[in-house]
């Protein structure tokens, strides 16, 4: 059976990756998950300097999902290069570094620092709803997105995945903008913007008021957006949003994704990534599909 997929020239042994921010740099899950089995590990977002992130509470549970407002806390690119990349290099999996910044300059600082690093791709987070400055604005206006993509592509040595926000009127326009800017691939969805109020304490559950909404509850929106985006562009699409089983993953592949990421499900079941891989294989066996590329695209 062949489950390998190719994204921008990078061959993944299977289409299953971790969703940025839900799997650290793999270290914390290495006890429970065999990282060698994963198509790729997508790291937590990294910026040029260390970020402290938002005040707590940072997470909340909602029906079938969760809200987070971590605020992209990260140790900065230097620590990351020294500690996390070498750790991941020990495993037989692809490394995709998720990049964040408050300004184009900050993105470029990270992109340039990554140039000589043994990583396979980078994913540019222009869609995080939890930081005031930068980030989300870049991801909600097609013109700005195209510009940012161009800038990053001009400096990046590795293939660039632009990660899109679902908090837009037309995901198609955003996908087209990323493609026009030269993105090698797009990934979606980042989190929807949500809010939860504690009516007894009479305050927002998250210190940040709003948070990014993820998990099985968002899957219908994600599948729809992956379908719309992948039918608009020629570059590969990495689908995510609520994937917890192999069947969920196949749904995204049928919607037009080339690969998928597993995020929030890792919290509900640490072995989710492995289970998704196994589930895709089971599906292929049951449907007598030898090559993952032969899964029907709708």
């Amino acid at each position: 059976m062949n489950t390998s997929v190719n994204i921008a020239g990078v061959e993944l042994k299977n289409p299953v990756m971790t969703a940025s921010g839900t799997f650290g740099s793999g270290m914390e899950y290495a006890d429970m998950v065999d990282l060698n089995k994963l198509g790729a590990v997508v790291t937590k977002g990294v910026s040029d300097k260390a970020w402290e992130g938002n005040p707590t509470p940072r997470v909340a549970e909602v029906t079938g999902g969760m809200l987070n407002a971590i605020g992209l806390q990260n140790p900065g690119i230097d620590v990351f290069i020294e500690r996390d990349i070498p750790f991941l290099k020990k495993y037989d999996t692809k490394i995709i570094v998720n990049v964040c910044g408050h300004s184009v300059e900050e993105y470029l600082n990270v992109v340039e620092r990554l140039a000589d690093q043994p990583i396979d791709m980078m994913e540019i987070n222009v869609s995080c709803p939890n930081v005031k400055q930068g980030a989300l604005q870049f991801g909600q206006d097609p013109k700005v997105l195209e510009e940012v993509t161009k800038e990053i592509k001009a400096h990046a040595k590795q293939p660039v995945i632009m990660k899109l926000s679902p908090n837009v009127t037309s995901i198609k326009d955003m996908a087209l903008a990323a493609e026009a800017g030269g993105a090698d691939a797009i990934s979606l969805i980042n989190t929807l913007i949500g809010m939860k109020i504690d009516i007894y304490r009479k305050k927002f559950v998250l210190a940040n008021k709003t948070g990014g909404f993820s998990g099985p509850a968002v899957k219908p929106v994600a599948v729809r957006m992956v379908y719309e985006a992948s039918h608009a562009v020629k570059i590969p699409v990495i689908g995510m949003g609520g994937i917890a089983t192999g069947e969920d993953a196949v749904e995204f592949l049928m919607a037009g994704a080339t690969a998928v990421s597993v995020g929030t499900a890792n919290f509900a079941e640490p072995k989710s990534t492995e289970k998704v891989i196994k589930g895709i294989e089971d599906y292929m066996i049951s449907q007598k599909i030898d090559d993952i590329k032969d899964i029907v695209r709708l």
Partner: protein
Amino acid sequence: MSMKKRKEPAVIYSQEKIAEGIYSLWIKTSFAGEARPGQFLGVYINNDAKLLARPISICDVNKEEGLLRMVYRTAGEGTKELASYEPGTEIQVLGVLGNGYESALDTDDLNKALGDKKVIVIGGGIGIPPMLLTAKALDKEPEIVLGYSNGDLFLEDEFEDVGNLHIATVDGSVGTKGTVIDAIKEDEIEGDVIFACGPMTMLKAIKQYARENGMKAYISLEERMACGIGACLGCVCRTVNKDHHTHVNNTRICVEGPIFDAEDVDI
């Protein structure tokens, strides 16, 4: 001693209401053999709409029988659902989580590390249960101070067996009227090291009291958690110094805690 973290099924052995809204739950689990004082489990609810594990401290273990006890309050919908499960029900549990006192004190052997230091074990409200396993782990009987809001006590008789028990109640119905600090003062309790778990106001008062009295205080912190294993950065606490892992003044309660030297954290 440190085993790999894992998610596993466990079976409810018994469940009993021991005070208004407080339940004592014994589960049959392999984690019973590994649990250390101060650690906790992530308890999943059998409900697809509730994804995240509830962090619940380990209150007691019976290693021979492979049983582990948690005592919890029905705070919200998840714990209410948990309270409805009958013996025999299978639940999913992530464990063993957190550092525990040994790790916080940077030792393999709590009692050796403590030497002849006198320990005061303090629990307030739903922070009381984890102190039982802690008190039991000590060679020398500690002073134990438990703070309740009213006379609806729980676990007090079990603490009585493992140390010298003092009680404070907010309404004064049992023991000292007031807080655990009031009880410490009233009963003239002395010690070198405090182990404490309870509401934030209590922990702040203890930090202050320990500082003023030249004592060490190890406190157990709480925060909302998603992963429970250090990956999501959901559960951080402000720290005085830069954290070795995060490289900012934020530390992950689920792995570097929940037990901290009170002087290390910015509460």
